[in-house]
Every structure is written in C-alpha cells, then in structure tokens.
C-alpha cells in the first residue's frame, strides 16, 4: 500500500521550539477576567451581608454541648417499647412502600424511555416523574397526612410516590442507554413487543434495577424517620417525641439504631449487587 512520504523526524530548523498550551475554557480574555472578577465581587458582597451574632453563637454552643453530651450516653432501655414499635413501623413502611414503588415505577420507566415509547406517552411519564421529583418528601407527607390522617398509611403513600420519581427516572435512563444491537437482533427473529422487552431489554437493565431498588429501600427507611416528624408514623414520630421531652439519651439511641439499619442495608445491597452484575 503506498504510504505518504515519511514525516521528517527532526522539526524544521527554524529556531525556537513550537510551544503549546491548553486552550482556556473562555477564549476571550476580557470576558474571562470579567467573569472571575464578577464571581469574586459577588462572594465578597455575600459574605458582608451575613448577619453573624457572636453572642448568640456562644450561647448556642453551650446548648449544643449539652445535647451532644446527652447523645454520648444513649439510653436504649427507658423508652425501648416505643423505640421498638417505631423502628418496626418504619421498617414495614419502607419495605411496603419500596415494593409498591417498584411495581409502579417499572411501567412508568418503560413509558419514559424514549427508545421504547412514542412521544406523547414519553412526555406524560416524564411529567409524572418530574412532579414526583420536584415535591420534597416532607411536603408530600404533609399532604397525605391531611388526606388520610396521622399514621403510617400516610408515610407509606408518601414513600411510594417518592420512589416513582427516583426509580422510574433512573431506570428509564438505564433503558435509554442499552445496547440497541442486542434489541435489534431479538427483533430480527420475529419476536413480538413483549418478547423483545423480555429478551432484549430486561437482561440489560435487570442488575441496575436490583441495585437501584435496594438503594431506594435504604433511602425510604431514612426518609421514614424524617416524615415521621410531620406525623406520618414510624420511628421519626418516636424521635420527635423524645426531642420534645428533652430526652436526648433516647433520641441518641434512636439515631444510632437508624444508622445501624442503614449500615446493614448498605452491606446487604453491596453483597447482592456483586452477585447480579
């Protein structure tokens, strides 16, 4: 094969060596400096506008220390019944809400994947996901508490709804990122739509779905502690009561248990994900 004439190994002897520098992000130096100075100026103004009351910080420091020392001696025993009931309620809330959330997320995710769905369905599903994602759990919980009253049912509904926003979005993105060749090859055999889904799509996204579901279970448990504070049941309600009564020991015990449960789910999901890659 004819090659072009070989490239000269030595640079042309034109004196100085040719230098090179990475081109800057903003090509125009005037604009670049304007942006840098603008950012610095804004930062200065922002710091100046902060109203720091050092006396109050000093006072609060002492209060904070009292709280911290309470936390250093967690008290599992005196409120154990309440703590246990709250934890179990949170766990069952998180589990059922995750299961229901997954069941609802899968069809929404299929609809929200541009490579599977026609445009109108895609827009509708993306809209639902956006609504679910833009409403913070606490706000949704307040809404559901108002609708169905205090207790774990409101918590269950909140978490299931929030799960859709999270799981459907990430699953839809996983579906959009699959290898189209594998789908095409299943389609070429004369398979129907559901068969293409079963053989061409599901194997490619199943590990991701399992990993995301376990992660969401963990999030739902943590969230159940937060939404309990607004009356949606679970260990959050117990925690709130303990804080209201200045029982920092019991509150500390609850927080430690929450951390422990989250840790356990973390280890379990890591182990499972290793197995299903």
């Amino acid at each position, binding site marked *: 094969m004819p090659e072009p004439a070989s490239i000269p190994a030595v640079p042309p002897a034109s004196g100085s060596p040719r230098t090179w520098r990475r081109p800057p992000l903003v090509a125009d130096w005037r604009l670049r400096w304007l942006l840098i100075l603008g950012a610095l100026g804004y930062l200065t103004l922002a710091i100046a506008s902060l109203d720091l009351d050092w006396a109050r910080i000093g006072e609060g420091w002492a209060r904070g220390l009292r709280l911290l020392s309470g936390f250093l001696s967690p008290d599992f025993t005196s409120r154990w019944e309440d703590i246990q009931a709250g934890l179990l309620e949170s766990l069952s809330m998180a589990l059922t809400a995750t299961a229901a959330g997954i069941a609802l997320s899968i069809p929404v995710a299929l609809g929200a994947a541009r490579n599977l769905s026609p445009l109108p369905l895609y827009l509708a599903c993306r809209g639902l996901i956006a609504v679910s994602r833009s409403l913070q759990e606490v706000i949704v919980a307040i809404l559901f508490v108002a609708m169905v009253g205090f207790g774990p049912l409101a918590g269950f509904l909140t978490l299931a709804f929030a799960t859709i926003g999270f799981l459907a979005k990430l699953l839809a993105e996983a579906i959009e990122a699959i290898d189209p060749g594998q789908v095409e090859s299943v389609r070429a055999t004369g398979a129907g739509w559901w068969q293409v889904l*079963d053989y061409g799509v599901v194997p490619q996204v199943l*590990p991701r779905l399992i990993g995301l579901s376990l992660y969401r279970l963990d999030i739902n448990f943590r969230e159940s502690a937060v939404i309990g504070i607004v009356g949606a049941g679970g260990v959050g309600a117990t925690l709130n009561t303990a804080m209201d009564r200045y029982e920092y020991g019991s509150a500390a015990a609850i927080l430690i248990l929450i951390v422990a449960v989250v840790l356990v789910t973390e280890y379990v999901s890591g182990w499972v994900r290793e197995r299903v890659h």
Partner: protein
Amino acid sequence: MLRIESLSKRYRTGDQALAEVSFEVPAGQMVGLIGPSGAGKSTLIRCVNRLVEPSAGRVWLKDLELTRLGRRGLRQARRRMGMIFQEYALVERLTVMENLLSGRLGYVSFWRSLTRRFPQADIDTAFRLLDRVGLSEHVDKRADALSGGQRQRVGIARALAQDPEILLVDEPTASLDPKTSRQIMRLIREVCEERRLAAIVNLHDVELAKRFMDRILGLRAGRVVYDGAPAGLTPEVLTAIYGEEDWGPAARPGEHEPGEALPQGHPGLPGGAPGGPRPPDSDAVAGAL
C-alpha cells in the same frame, strides 16, 4: 427466492443510503455485498427484513411481498429470514441456550418464552445446532463469557434456529482475527450448502468475498456498480467500487530486503487486506470448527 425491485432509502437526515437497487437472489446462492463504508450495505440488508423501513421500492421473499406487510405479517415473515450481525449482537447476560432459543421467539407465545418453557422440539433443535457449531459444552454459559469466534457461532446457530429460508449476514467477521474470520465464513458457507439457503453477506474484506461467495454485488453510494462473478473483480472494477487505489500485490518490490520471501498474492487481488497467515487456497482446512 428473494427479489428486490428499485429499493431506495433516504434517511431523515437527508442521506440517500440506497438508490434504485434491483437484483434477485436464487435459492442456494450466496451473494457478497461489498463497497466502501457508508455505501448502504447495512441499510440494504436491514431494508429486506425491515429493521430499517425502505423509502421506496419492493422486496419479495418467494411470493410474499415483504414491503406490504403489516406488523403481524412482518413478524411472521421475519421468522423466515435469519440474521447474523457484526459484533455478534448476542444478548450478553443471557445464556448460550437462551440466545439460541430466542431464535424461536417468533414461533412461541409470550408466556412460554417468559417462563423459558420452549417446546421440546425447539430444545432438541437447539442442542443439535450447538453440536453443529461445536459449542455443546457451553450450553449454560453466559454469552459474555465466550470468545469472539464462539459468540459468532452462537449468532449463526441462533439464526439457524429460526429455520430460515435466507440468511442476512452483516459483516460477520468485522471483529474477528483473520483465522477465525475464515473459519466463520467457512461455517456460514457450509450451513448454507447443507440447507440450500440463499444468503446476502456484507463484507468489507474483498479477499474473503472472493473466496467464499458465489456472486458479488459492488455497492457505491447506494447504487449497484458491479454484479457478477468474484473472478470479475479486476483492479478496474475495484476502482469503480471503492475509488482510485493501487490494487496490486501488497508491497512494491524493492522495498523489502532481498531474501525475504513475500507471499505472492493472486493477480488482481487487492493489496493491504488484513494480514495473517493465508491458508492454502483449497477449502480443505476442514474440522477446524
């Protein structure tokens, strides 16, 4: 067997991939489709089973006009056309057997395929095909655990599992080394002869096309510029297909040290085809699979 009549495809981007392509493939004939990248080879193959929807023209498989079928009819027609892909296109996380059985999807109901309870006849066929392509000990391995050559053999077996009348083969050797490429081409050739299958095979390697195909179609910018025997691929024809290039033997004499024996290319063979040991010209390297 397969008849294509002024088939055209213009993509929405405005690219004219195929322009008025017409030809006919009789039963048992293997047609090699060659041409530069972007000449429309993949598009042509995919317009036959309508993975890509043609813009104009007609395609018949025997008496069935494929270009007029509705969704259901198209799915049933696709069962009669086995497809083999570049990069194998196996479902990586499914087992070899599941990949093979996926060739039967057009014949079984969704529920049977969902629970993986295929008819015993399908399973027998699948095992027989695995034996045929020499992979019987890998039944339950995941497809991504196989080597390139093994994967492509699963791909061939999957296409045959459909019990097709024609094979549509898209660059079957694009990601394989020269030796495996020849083995795969030989296997495709053999199964086509065993079953009297017609085949359209996209190839970028002219040498492979000349060796294994009955007939060559040269495609350039969506048009057929050569249709004839492999022996007719003279340097002039190759220039018409691919554009100006030195189609002589691989190296110009005098550039190598004297004493180094150069493999003597066939007269008129394109130079610069992927290297590697060139097996003797007889097709007798059997049993390599």
